[in-house]
């Protein structure tokens, strides 16, 4: 029974979100730390190095860590600067909670809470089968915890249905990289960006979503590089780009295939590289033949001359770097978008060398490491394939189970919610994810959760999703535990523990091991520390694609991180992939994929004439569970807004700051208008970090890419009109809880 146990207002009153605005004891409290802990930011995939100031088991501030190579000089974005304010937070959960109908939650003992979760797993599995209990996990966990979740699901819970929220993030990029190169990882260290003559940024609002990457791009331009940016909005880095292409959401393949068409025509193709090191070129050449600039421009919704200009920059360059992110990945053709972009890399042969390559910009803290070691529905540790019998046997042997006991590929994230909606999944244990802000088609996701017979959540705050839980287990923040993550470059780094969790909360991995013990699999989960888990996962990954065998925590500290693959203890790691001339496929060759443009799942029509595209702002992180609780971040961007062009605003009779109601076939939100010339007139943008009646995902469409199963967050059809004010019940809440100011 996973309906809200009390009103939203009552739950907000008791559990937040509310903001923490100052360090423990206030700004006048002593700021001299007992010690500085060298660690990394808990937020996005940049994983910036930072030193946390610790005093009396509280994180009281930060000091830049200047000599770490990635964010060299001590760079941080506003999230990094303020991350410490999530520690010592008034909303922190410090006791397990059990749902009480009509009242909310009551505190219960840890042993009772763990017993209850295990009893429900057993009851549901006995009644409906093992796969009726599912696990939803996340990519902001350390790699040790991500590995543990995969093993826990397969070995202790024995369900096929585990998936992670990277499925909502950048899994299209992962799938495309695997198809083309056989390896799912950024191909280069970030230092290569600044050495490129041409930089193509496809669907990445770098200044806001990967701020540290900005300097690498600016440095390339100081060195003479030309910058191409594809985005429906003029973002901070697009503003001064040499070629900014304000592409129609969903029209990217027009630009990318059109560029390739021009490059073939002008002879900017490396035909000897193509012949020696790739397969599949002929079909691509055939496909892009009809993508003349004029034909491509119609698909892309931009003037043909911009596509030609982009080809003229990219084509003849001696070195080049492609960066892509959610803007091209969050589509029902997300994988195809990435394939079309990667064709531009392969066709020029500019990869595996200094200043030549590509990267997907991971969004979540451990977006890379969290998708390598087996919490993904189709994957086993070491980026192994759960459908491959050799891989299955290897991992089953390693875990000491029979191969036929190892579940097969399970459902993906949104499909698990769909199965819950249909009654095929009856119970879920959720960690490190907040689908009732982040999943598409919010009403459907809420109905799915509400239909569960049992819903357990591990979290450090009572997220909007955790409010629906039958049992909540209070877990740990990044700074309260240790373990590795893999940053955007493929660099494995170490988070050091700064403080203990507050009394009553526990570190996540111990909670999982205790549940495994109670499920009768304790002998497979005898870990005494995260390092024990790392030692096991390092060996489990041996011989896999994401081979961590040669990585030790000591090596990470000594070398400022180690890039995988690192197959032996004396191996230095692999910052740049494919430098040896071989790609990741068995024959060493890369694959072209011919890609035809096709429409989005929901195109505009007379009833819903505007395209909605969603995304992030610099002050917030993902579903906002953390960043909406940090005063300075919440203050910077307190509420979502509907960004629209003055031409559209005029047609709608809307002025800047007016309330507008934005509606799709699935739901509606009321927010204020932000009227700016920096967006296409046919498109509106709403950032997605807020809950309830302010959730952009009330509007989005539950359409999935057929390969990656990523939702189409970047295109759906909406309409908008001016309204005098909000008429929903949550409008009077604090803005961090979904209210309006």
């Amino acid at each position: 029974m996973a309906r809200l146990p009390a009103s939203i207002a009552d739950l907000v009153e008791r559990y937040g979100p509310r903001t923490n605005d100052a360090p423990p004891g206030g700004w006048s409290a002593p700021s001299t730390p007992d010690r500085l802990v060298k660690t990394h930011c808990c937020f996005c995939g940049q994983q910036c190095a930072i030193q946390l100031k610790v005093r009396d088991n509280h994180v009281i501030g930060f000091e830049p860590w200047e000599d770490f190579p990635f964010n060299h000089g001590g760079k941080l974005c506003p999230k990094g600067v303020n991350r410490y304010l999530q520690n010592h937070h008034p909303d922190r959960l410090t006791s397990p909670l059990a749902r009480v109908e009509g009242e909310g939650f009551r505190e219960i003992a840890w042993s009772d809470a763990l017993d209850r979760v295990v009893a429900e797993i057993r009851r549901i599995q006995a009644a409906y089968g093992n796969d009726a209990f599912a696990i939803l996990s996340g990519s902001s966990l350390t790699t040790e915890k991500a590995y543990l979740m995969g093993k826990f699901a397969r070995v202790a819970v024995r369900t096929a249905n585990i998936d992670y929220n990277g499925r909502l993030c950048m899994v299209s990029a992962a799938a495309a990289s695997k198809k083309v190169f056989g390896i799912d990882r950024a191909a280069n260290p970030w230092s290569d960006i600044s050495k490129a003559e041409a930089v193509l940024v496809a669907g990445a609002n770098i200044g806001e979503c990967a701020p540290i990457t900005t300097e690498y791009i600016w440095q390339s331009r100081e060195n003479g590089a030309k910058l191409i940016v594809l985005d429906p909005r003029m973002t901070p880095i697009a503003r001064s780009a040499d070629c900014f292409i304000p592409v129609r959401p969903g029209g990217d393949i027009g630009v990318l295939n059109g560029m390739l068409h021009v490059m073939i025509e002008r002879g900017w193709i490396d035909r000897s590289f193509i012949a020696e090191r790739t397969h599949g070129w002929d079909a691509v050449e055939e496909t892009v033949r009809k993508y003349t600039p004029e034909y491509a421009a119609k698909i892309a919704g931009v003037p043909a001359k911009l596509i030609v200009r982009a080809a003229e920059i990219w084509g003849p360059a001696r070195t080049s770097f492609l960066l892509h992110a959610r803007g091209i990945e969050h589509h029902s053709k997300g994988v195809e978008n990435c394939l079309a972009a990667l064709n531009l890399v392969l066709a020029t042969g500019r990869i595996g060398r200094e200043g030549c390559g590509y990267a997907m910009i991971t969004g979540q803290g451990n977006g890379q490491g969290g998708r390598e070691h087996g919490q993904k529905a189709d994957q086993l540790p070491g980026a192994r394939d759960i459908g491959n019998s050799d891989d299955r046997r290897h991992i089953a042997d390693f875990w000491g189970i029979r191969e036929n006991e190892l579940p097969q590929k399970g459902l993906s994230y949104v499909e698990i919610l769909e199965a819950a909606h249909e009654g095929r999944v009856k119970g879920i244990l959720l960690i490190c994810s907040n689908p009732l802000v982040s999943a598409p088609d919010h009403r459907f996701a809420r109905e799915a959760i509400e239909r569960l017979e049992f819903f357990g959540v591990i979290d450090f705050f009572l997220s909007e999703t955790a409010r629906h839980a039958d049992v909540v287990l209070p877990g740990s923040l990044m700074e309260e535990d240790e373990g590795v993550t893999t940053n955007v470059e493929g660099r494995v780094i170490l988070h050091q523990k700064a403080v203990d969790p507050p009394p009553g909360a526990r570190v996540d991995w111990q909670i999982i091991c205790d549940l495994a013990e109670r499920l009768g699999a304790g002998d497979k989960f005898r870990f005494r520390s995260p390092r024990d888990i790392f030692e096991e996962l390092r060996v489990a990954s041996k011989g896999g694609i994401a081979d961590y065998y040669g990585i030790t925590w000591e090596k990470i500290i000594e070398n400022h991180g180690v890039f995988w693959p690192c197959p032996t203890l004396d191996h230095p790691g692999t910052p740049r992939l494919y430098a040896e001339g071989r790609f990741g496929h068995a024959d060493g060759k890369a694959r072209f994929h011919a890609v035809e443009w096709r429409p989005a799942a929901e195109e505009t029509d007379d009833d819903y004439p505007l395209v909605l595209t969603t995304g992030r702002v610099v002050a917030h992180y993902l579903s906002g569970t953390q960043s909406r609780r940090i005063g300075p971040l919440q203050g910077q961007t307190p509420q979502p807004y509907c960004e629209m062009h003055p031409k559209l605003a005029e047609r709608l009779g809307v002025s800047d700051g007016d309330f507008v109601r934005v509606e799709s076939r699935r739901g509606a939100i009321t927010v204020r208008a932000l009227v700016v010339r920096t967006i296409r007139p046919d498109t509106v943008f709403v950032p997605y970090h807020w809950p309830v009646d302010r959730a952009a995902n009330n509007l989005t469409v539950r359409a999935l890419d057929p390969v990656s199963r990523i939702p189409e967050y970047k295109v759906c059809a909406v309409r908008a009109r001016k309204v005098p004010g909000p008429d929903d019940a949550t409008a009077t809440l604090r803005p961090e809880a979904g209210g309006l100011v």
Partner: protein
Amino acid sequence: MSERAFFIDYSRCIGCKACVHACAECDTHRGRSMIHLETIERRDTVQTAPQVCMHCHDPICARVCPADAIKQMPDGVVQSSLKPRCIGCSNCVIACPFGVPKYYGEIDQMMKCDYCYDRTSAGKKPMCATVCPSEALVFTTREDIERRRRGRPVNQFHFGGEEVRTKVYVMVPETMDALDVRSIEPRTPGAHDDDVASLLEESE
């Protein structure tokens, strides 16, 4: 190698406000940010511009202070007002050509960027120029700037008839050796360089 200096490159700014937040962490004014991040005209552009105290060689704020509350250090850093002396008259706020000092009514005192004196006097970089992700703010040597950047750092500003020299440098195109406000061309009325709608028009 010369001493490190402060350089601003407005064209690099992404408006993220890391500088604004980091400034509030500085030990001399904890919880209060002294850097300004100007949004130029959000309706028309995403351009933003950070503004630290430029630390004028001959600080106008100090010259106009009737209470002699604003002190310049031997190394050229111009401090916030001295609490026992500041009378809250806001002369400095009005006089500063860069719009830097700010009067805080609740403490009846002017405060402004002090070059992170606690940090820079101890050999560290100022907070804002340490964290800035785009290096729009950077604290480094002149040699490093000349090696890594296009354009030229200048510290001479002409405001009408008044010439101001500062400790802090601003990056300008190679062809300029000072920044003259009279040379800045006013925007053509109705022209919007960053208007996406006009970029979508087919004509050249």
